[in-house]
């Protein structure tokens, strides 16, 4: 069942490729604005790079999260998904997985490229990539709770940012922390372990919380 939901959402995303591309372009542009604005001060650029890339990733995922359930809600397919025999948290997990593949993986893959503008070493870029691989599932998972809570509300897009961005802070601290540690010559491992732990916790709680929120939103 899970594979049908993932496959369905991937196919829908493929048919609306422009949505996916706009998220990636947003990420690239936001990250690129900093080196352009600050100028060629490599020391400064290197020290702000981890934070800038991570914050841009958080903001970019905000763009796509609003659509996670809203489209299905509008055409009535979400109701039908609620009435399928599998547990709703599994449905949510399938949608989150599809969202991660569609909206987050392109960011992860392009991050080393945009990170190169900040004069980071190849080792640092690798750690940036790894931190995003571990950290971006957190963005999709926690974001799903926010998307479910704000479903059907007017101005939900702004509300979801206010609700969810504070919850992203641990991911931001440890994700950017891992990259900073590498820049100053320390091991990124402790940060990455904590980031991984946070990912597991959100994997355990988010599908359950999001499905509870969805039931309330659809009453």
């Amino acid at each position, binding site marked *: *069942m899970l594979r*049908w*939901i993932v496959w*369905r959402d991937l*196919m*829908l995303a493929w*048919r*609306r490729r422009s949505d996916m591309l706009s998220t990636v372009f947003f990420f690239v542009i936001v990250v690129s604005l900093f080196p352009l604005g600050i100028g060629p001060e490599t020391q400064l650029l290197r020290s702000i790079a981890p934070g800038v890339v991570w914050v841009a990733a958080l903001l970019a995922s905000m763009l796509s999260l609003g659509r996670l359930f809203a489209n299905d809600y*509008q*055409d*009535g*397919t979400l*109701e*039908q*998904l*609620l*009435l*399928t*025999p*599998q*547990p709703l948290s599994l449905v949510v997990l399938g949608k989150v997985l599809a969202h991660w593949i569609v909206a987050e993986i392109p960011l992860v893959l392009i991050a080393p490229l945009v990170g190169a503008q900040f004069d980071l070493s190849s080792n640092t870029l690798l750690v940036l990539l790894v931190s995003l691989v571990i950290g971006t599932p957190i963005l999709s998972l926690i974001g799903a709770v926010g998307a479910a809570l704000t479903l059907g509300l007017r101005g939900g897009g702004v509300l979801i940012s206010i609700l969810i961005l504070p919850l992203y802070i641990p991911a931001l601290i440890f994700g950017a922390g891992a990259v900073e540690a590498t820049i100053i010559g320390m091991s990124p491992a402790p940060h990455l372990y904590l980031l991984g732990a946070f990912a597991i916790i959100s994997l355990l709680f988010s599908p359950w919380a999001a499905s509870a929120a969805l039931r309330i939103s*659809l*009453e």
Partner: protein
Amino acid sequence: MRGDRRLFSGLDFSLSPGTFVQLTGPNGSGKTSLLRILCGLLAPAEGNIFWQGADIRSLREDYVTAVTYMGHRPGVKDELSAVENLRIANALNGVEVNQPDALAALQRMGLKGRESLPARFLSEGQRRRVALARLILCGTRLWLLDEVMTSLDKGAVELVRSLIEEHLQRDGIAIVATHQELELSAGVTKRLELTT
């Protein structure tokens, strides 16, 4: 209960196989709420719903597999073609449908030649027909249809009527909220009128 308002109370009925219930009542009388309660999307403020002697809240998945609910919105994805919509909707409900069966169902609903067109190119009524094609393939016992005849032409209403008749002959139950009269030649017809 919607908000502070009590829509209906003291509602008590049981249905045997092969029964068709025509649910009528003015706008806002609670037809949709009743159907949503019956399918489990909405919890009743008081009371219980039993399916084959067991409370639907304790049955959960077993009950869901016996019910097909269709709401105001057809639940058809614009980006997917008619045939993809049909196959995915069924697969998510645990019924895997092969391509020829799906095409045959769409043909019966009068969508021949439009099977692989993205649904956004279909008219409102045609989209409704795509949604209704699910009834041919779903194989559930209880149908809850909410105003599914809106934006359908005469021919399509006739199709829905024959689908419901076949369903009743297979010992199914159908509860249909509608403003149009449906005269069925099979099964037992009951009327339930809600008032405001």
